[in-house]
């Protein structure tokens, strides 16, 4: 396994010897850079991508505003990272598995998760596939091959290796793409997942969104090396660093990564250099740890605008369309939000279902005790009491499970 050549003086190597370039295709003005190939991306697909980017922007804006109004408990924006997330997703087969961290709603929008579906999760109502158990933004969709988000960071990384290994055995030519932040890449699970995938040749794309921060912690306090990319060398894995705000670069890089993963059954690492333009979450205020000036610099590298410039230059998108589309999206989000926040909560039984495939006798008993208690104090548990009344319509809550 190890290279053969010898040295006779104790010369330590430092990471500095290894220089990792960044792959870019588009200038900020939306022009192809010298030497860059025009990616094979047709009008329809390019528009599908852009529409997902736009939808992500609008959804994020509206929902953060709603959170500020107190209508929503919590929210997290993808703002600034739309190219990284949607570019990667667009390069996949729609049946490839995506295991995301939490800031990748763009991937869902690209794959066709409806605004309704978003809202039901955000409000944890009776139509939420997750049955109101997780905080907002913990989406999942079985039919869209998007693994339900889990809050503990990094856990999805070795899981992605396992999932992909199963895909390899199934032999259907599919792979898994796993998103994670440069912060989550510090977890032990990152090391575990990278190494397991490399040793067992799982077709998985490790996609790091290096957005410069993990909450308040800047990447300079997260790692001492040259980002996440050189870690691939430690696992014998191929790697590419890409400008994460350059949709065409991310798209092309991920296409190539997917080819390596699926054709060679080899895992691949992509590090997308980007920036979290918004706060970490609705609970966070970045002014405590970074400067407006720094944010400004990155605002000028807006990924959505950059791709729009390119689209416009292809004559595939117009200012008019932009305006109409934005309006439609805004209206759609607001209308849907109003519907979703009024919907009843999940049934009381959702407290005990899905812990096991079948409800255990002990849980059934605990539920009976709880039900009796709520009947005794209906005014103390308005939601619970309401749920005890029989409802007329039996709603279908299984679309995500198709």
């Amino acid at each position, binding site marked *: 396994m190890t290279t053969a050549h010898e040295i006779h003086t104790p010369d330590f190597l430092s990471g500095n010897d290894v220089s990792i370039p960044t792959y870019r295709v588009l200038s900020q003005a939306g022009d192809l850079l010298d030497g860059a190939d025009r990616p094979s991306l047709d009008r329809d697909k390019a528009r599908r991508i852009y529409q997902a980017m736009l939808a992500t922007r609008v959804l994020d804006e509206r929902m953060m505003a709603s959170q500020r109004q107190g209508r929503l408990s919590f929210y997290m924006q993808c703002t600034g990272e739309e190219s990284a997330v949607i570019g990667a997703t667009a390069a996949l087969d729609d049946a490839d*598995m995506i*295991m995301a961290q939490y800031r990748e709603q763009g991937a869902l929008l690209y794959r066709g998760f409806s605004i309704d579906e978003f809202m039901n999760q955000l409000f944890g109502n009776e139509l*939420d*596939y*997750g*049955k109101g*158990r*997780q905080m907002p933004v*913990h989406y*999942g*969709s*079985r039919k869209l091959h998007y*693994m*339900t988000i*889990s809050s*503990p960071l990094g*856990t999805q*990384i*070795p*899981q*992605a*290796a*396992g*999932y*992909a*290994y*199963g*895909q390899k*055995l*199934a032999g259907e030519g599919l792979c*898994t793409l796993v998103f994670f932040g440069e912060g989550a890449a510090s977890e*032990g*699970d990152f*090391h*575990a*997942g990278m*190494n*397991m995938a490399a*040793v*067992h040749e799982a077709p998985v794309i490790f996609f790091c969104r290096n957005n410069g921060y993990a909450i308040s912690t800047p990447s300079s306090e997260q790692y001492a090396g040259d980002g996440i990319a050189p870690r691939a060398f430690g696992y014998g894995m191929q790697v590419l660093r890409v400008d994460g705000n350059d949709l065409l670069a991310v798209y092309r890089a991920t296409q190539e990564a997917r080819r390596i993963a699926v054709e060679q059954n080899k895992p691949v690492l992509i590090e997308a250099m980007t920036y979290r333009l918004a706060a970490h979450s609705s609970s966070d205020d970045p002014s405590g740890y970074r400067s407006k000036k720094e944010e400004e610099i990155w605002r000028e590298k807006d990924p959505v605008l950059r791709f729009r410039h390119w689209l416009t230059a292809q004559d595939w998108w117009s200012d008019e369309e932009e305006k109409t589309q934005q309006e439609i999206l805004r209206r759609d989000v607001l209308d849907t939000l109003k519907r979703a926040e009024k919907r009843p909560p999940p049934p009381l039984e*959702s407290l005990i*279902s*899905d*812990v*096991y*495939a*079948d409800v*255990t*006798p*002990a849980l059934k008993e605990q539920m009976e005790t709880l039900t009796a208690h709520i009947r005794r104090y209906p005014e103390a548990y308005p939601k619970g009491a309401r749920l005890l009344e029989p409802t007329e319509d039996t709603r279908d809550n299984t679309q*995500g*499970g198709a």
Partner: protein
Amino acid sequence: MPTRNMLQAINQALDIAMAEDEKVLCFGEDVGSFGGVFRATSHLQEKYGRRRCFNTPLVEQGIIGFANGLAAQGSVPVAEIQFADYIFPAFDQIVNETAKFRYRSGDLFNVGGLTIRTPYGGGISGGLYHSQSPEAYFAHTPGLKVVVPRNPHQAKGLLLASIRDPDPVLFLEPKRLYRASTGEVPDEDYQLPLGVAEVVSEGSDITVVGWGAQMEVIGKAVALAEKEGISCEVIDLRSILPWDEETIAESVFKTGRLVVTHEAPRTGGFAGEIAAAIQERCFLYLESPIRRVTGLDTPFPLTLEKEYIPDHLKVFEAIRESMHF
């Protein structure tokens, strides 16, 4: 019926499961061509190939993370953790992921196919890092099933049931009995039910409950007690989670007395849960306090292991004290 030891029974269960369903995979540290440090996975790689039975890198959180992903994908992973003492690096993957996978996704995804096998327990001069009995940690984790067999016959039937169960199962193997416990084990495929305790022998004066290797200890203690004319009802809990409160309660309604024993330290051990539940359920029937016979509230020792262990004499004394309360 052929006589087998517990390792052979486990090996046969794995063999049957792999032969039947090509989605079943066995992996872990040294599990591949070597067949595991205890040889529970012997010959499986030969028979089913390197893709279905393999060594993993030395990383328990990776083994279980990988297994969680495989199970979510629809495979049926049987992951081995070399010693239960080394399961803790995987604690997050088990407690936050395995156990909550179905619940958090509203059943869109689940890892029900997963079985984690791991040898546990003392009596092998293993000291504090090759002797632990961590069942109570997992018993506080809704979403998991925790199963412990007491002999080869039980091991085969419970392991096959665990692999096929729609929920993730932690299967704790009493390693002291791996070769020491032998018995008749049918060659056929059979399953024993999860979540159901077994009344191993009936009695009328006192109920004695345990699991795994402790059942052998109870056997000896009860023999001593019977000599003194004490009639013991012996129950093997078999499943720690979910546990069969019903069967224990029924027995205590009859006997009015209960001794529970395990090797793990007393405080926070699973005997506490049983005592708490049974005192509530059987309050008016109890004729003496529920007694626990457990390890000390210390790590597991080595030189003084024999003194530490809740052996048959300690169980016997507890039975006696309970009778003479």
